């Protein structure tokens, strides 16, 4: 890079440049030429002065034509007098300066009477550009303009340096801004489809909801592709991604202007748009139609439908804080945007439950139990696939010593919006639908894996793992091979797994159940009769089904210290169990009196809040308090 002193040394032109006008003095008061300079020198003395002046001077008519020039100008620029006089002054300037002079400089001169130190360039006869400062005055009587031009080559160089520095600064600012914008973009967008992601959509949504509600309501359309998982599983993830990109493009093309489109997760998309309630049908049907055409993936034609749920913002949603949220069984901390999204999501599940490839509207306060049940089922199906289920473990203790000998695995559902749900909220629905097979399979797998994890932990210990098995599971021909494979895969000894079966389950298809129990027992598993005393408490099955354990229902245990009849029933159960040579377990033990009563009767094991509630798994098995 050239240093400043070198540049200064280079500044005077090496080539002869005759009579270059001097640079202007820096004192602004002296910069303007005298306003009384003669336009047309009258005397020979004045004429000589005019031509020998240190500055280039021109006289220009009011409309911009050159009337006269001095010799200094001609020497400096190389122009011939005849070429200049009579021509347009602006033609002496490069095009940029010409435009500015014509549109701005000349009008200013006309209106205000003067121009001071305007930086521009003058074209020489050979095309060379001479940097100059132009000052000019308008003579009132004649309207003539007297123009003086000072050479400003060095100043021009400084300006170009400054300009380059400015451009560099702008470029680096632009680069920083661009990087920031990209980072911001990544936070709010889905990398696969380029659409907004959940964060981005919520941001737009909250912004829209904050707007005055004079327009059509903010509406969320929740779209879930039916059968996406099948594509992913059968054609691979690359094809799955291809399908998502195609779906995104089709949705985008089907949307009206101004609508926002997001990919929330997996195969779930959402549209955000303001539209009247009457317009919902058309939008939803357009979107369904857009997705209905077949897609060719890896040479295979795939038909994908979608289930769509729609929810529109209302006053209650926007105004609602905790109250509105509780209405929907939601988390009170969520914002209106999340609430609206969740409503659309729930409506989407209703569409799925209604047979897919259709759309449903969110219906506030809707109480149709059948629809709720179907919705729940649909959500549960997703929950199993997406890992929303959890197992909690309740210790089983020796009634006498209080030592933990095992645990019972109890399923919970970490519902995305309703929180942690106990089995009573969803197992019946699962049982009715057959989904319980998938649910049960998941529970078995997880419980066995956990038992092995505890056993392998340095501070862990072998525990007996009790798992509930439903009636449908029990008669499922896949149960026995599933369990066999499970135990082998995880390396858990069969006798450490206890299957708890209700009386009802045993009696539904007794012959099939009997065969299953026989096979399971042959594997070495322990079998327990759950909720003993509440179902078909028939001695027949105790005779036919070889079981290892009776679990006395909590309702009898709860009453045994206050109701002599309950006490009598518990006593009989213990006696019966022992008489048959099976372990007897008291369920739902809540206080010391109940425990003492069970101990007195000789009950073997107990579980209940007195010892511990069901707890999430830690590194070692839970202890009893």
């Amino acid at each position, binding site marked *: 890079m050239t240093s400043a002193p070198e540049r200064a040394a280079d500044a005077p032109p090496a080539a002869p440049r005759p009579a270059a006008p001097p640079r202007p003095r820096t004192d602004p008061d002296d910069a303007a030429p005298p306003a009384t300079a003669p336009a047309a020198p009258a005397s020979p003395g004045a004429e000589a002065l005019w031509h020998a002046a240190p500055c280039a001077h021109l006289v220009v008519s009011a409309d911009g034509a050159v009337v006269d020039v001095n010799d200094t100008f001609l020497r400096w620029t190389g122009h011939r007098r005849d070429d200049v006089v009579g021509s347009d002054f602006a033609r002496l300037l490069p*095009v940029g300066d010409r*435009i500015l002079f014509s549109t701005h400089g000349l009008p200013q001169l006309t209106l205000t009477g003067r121009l001071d130190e305007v930086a521009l360039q003058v074209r020489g006869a050979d095309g060379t550009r001479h940097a100059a400062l132009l000052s000019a005055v308008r003579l009132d009587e004649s309207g003539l303009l007297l123009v003086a031009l000072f050479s400003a080559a060095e100043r021009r160089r400084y300006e170009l340096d400054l300009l380059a520095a400015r451009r560099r600064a702008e470029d680096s600012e632009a680069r920083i801004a661009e990087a920031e914008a990209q980072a911001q973009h990544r936070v709010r967008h889905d990398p696969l489809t380029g659409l907004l992601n959940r964060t981005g959509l919520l941001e737009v949504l909250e912004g829209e909801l904050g707007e005055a509600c004079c327009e059509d309501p903010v509406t969320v359309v929740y779209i879930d592709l039916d059968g996406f998982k099948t594509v992913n599983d059968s054609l691979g993830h690359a094809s799955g991604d291809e399908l998502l990109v195609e779906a995104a493009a089709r949705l985008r093309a089907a949307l009206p202007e101004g609508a926002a489109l997001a990919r929330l997760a997996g195969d779930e998309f959402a549209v955000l748009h303001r539209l009247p309630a009457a317009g919902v049908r058309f939008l939803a049907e357009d979107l369904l139609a857009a997705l209905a055409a077949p897609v060719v993936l890896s040479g295979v034609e795939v038909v994908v439908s979608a289930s769509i749920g729609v929810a529109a913002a209302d006053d209650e949603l926007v105004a609602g804080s905790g109250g509105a949220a509780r209405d929907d069984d939601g988390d009170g901390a969520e914002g209106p945007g999340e609430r609206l999204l969740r409503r659309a999501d729930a409506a989407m599940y209703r569409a799925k439950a209604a047979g897919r490839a259709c759309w449903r509207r969110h219906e506030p306060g809707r109480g149709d139990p059948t629809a709720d049940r179907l919705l729940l089922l649909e959500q549960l199906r997703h929950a199993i696939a997406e890992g929303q289920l959890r197992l909690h473990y309740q210790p089983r203790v020796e009634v006498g010593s209080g030592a933990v000998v095992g645990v019972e695995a109890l399923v919970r559902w970490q519902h995305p919006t309703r929180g942690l749900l106990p089995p009573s909220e969803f197992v019946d629905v699962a049982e009715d639908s057959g989904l319980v097979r998938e649910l049960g399979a998941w529970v078995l797998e997880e419980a066995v894996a956990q038992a092995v994890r505890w056993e392998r932990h340095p501070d862990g210990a072998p525990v007996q793992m009790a798992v509930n098995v439903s009636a449908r599971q029990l008669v499922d021909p896949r149960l026995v091979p599933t369990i066999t494979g499970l135990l082998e895969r995880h390396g858990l000894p069969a006798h450490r797994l206890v299957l708890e079966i209700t009386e009802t389950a045993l009696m539904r298809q007794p012959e099939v159940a009997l065969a299953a129990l026989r096979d399971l027992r042959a594997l070495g598993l322990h079998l327990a009769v759950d909720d003993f005393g509440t179902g078909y408490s028939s001695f027949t099955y105790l005779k036919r089904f070889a079981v290892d354990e009776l679990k006395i229902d909590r309702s009898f245990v709860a009453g045994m210290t206050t109701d002599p009849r309950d006490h009598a029933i518990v006593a009989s159960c213990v006696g019966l169990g022992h008489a048959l040579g099976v372990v007897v377990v008291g369920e739902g033990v809540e206080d010391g009196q109940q425990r003492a009563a069970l101990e007195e009767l000789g009950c073997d094991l107990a579980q209940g809040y007195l010892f511990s509630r069901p707890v999430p798994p830690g590194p070692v098995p839970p202890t009893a308090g």
Partner: protein
Amino acid sequence: MPAPSPAAVVHRHHVTQLGPPDAPALVFAHGFGSDQDMWRDVALRFAEDHRVVLFDHVGAGRSDHAAYDAERYASLDGYAEDLLEICEALDLRDAVVVGHSVGAMVAVAAAVRDASRIGQLVLVAPSPRYVDDPGTGYVGGFSREDVDELLESLDSNYFAWAAMMAPVVMGRPDAPHLGEALTASFCRLDPDVARDFAQVTFLSDSRDLLPRVSVPTVVLQCEQDALAPRAVGEHVRRTVPHGTLVQLRAAGHCPHVSAPEETAAAIRHHLLGAS
């Protein structure tokens, strides 16, 4: 996007009004490198019997420079939309829009877009395309080399342009009735905006708009205009459906400044319904 409120539009463009509010409306649109003050010697000649509306394009004069949006003003459409918003904000009917230079093409674009409030156009030194188009034989007055040079100078002449655009105090003892507001500055233009505006002005091609102008159009053509030669004025007059060409004696590009009397007289003579 909802239309801005009338007050917002008035503020954005520093709209100035002269004359009786119920008189026929004359709207003056300035061109590149200038602002509404450039119109004053012409505008004042109509203030007695017309509702005179003066305004600054965003980025020029005393407009709200913060409202400048490079995207909106990347074409003449943004400026045309502004002009329509001004007509709307002031509830003008049958307004005569007088546009100078690129302001003339802004007026044309506005009239093509929505002529419901515009009754007539007066185009002062207009040019629908500054660059020659050898393909069609169109002569705009600037060669391709000129344009390259202009683009280069847009970049390298930043300080020159900035200095030229700096505010200048102008006293006009001969026109005290102009009032303070009109003498405070002269044609300020942000140099960065000037760069954008120059590109939009000198690279745009609005020839296709001309046949779509439905309102009567008067072209005022100057002598020896370095930016808009006579052939260009002829082209405009020929191409608009209802065109009249008026050849002024004034030379240069800014007859409203150099010859306000002649310019005002020409406008008045051709006003529809003029007595």
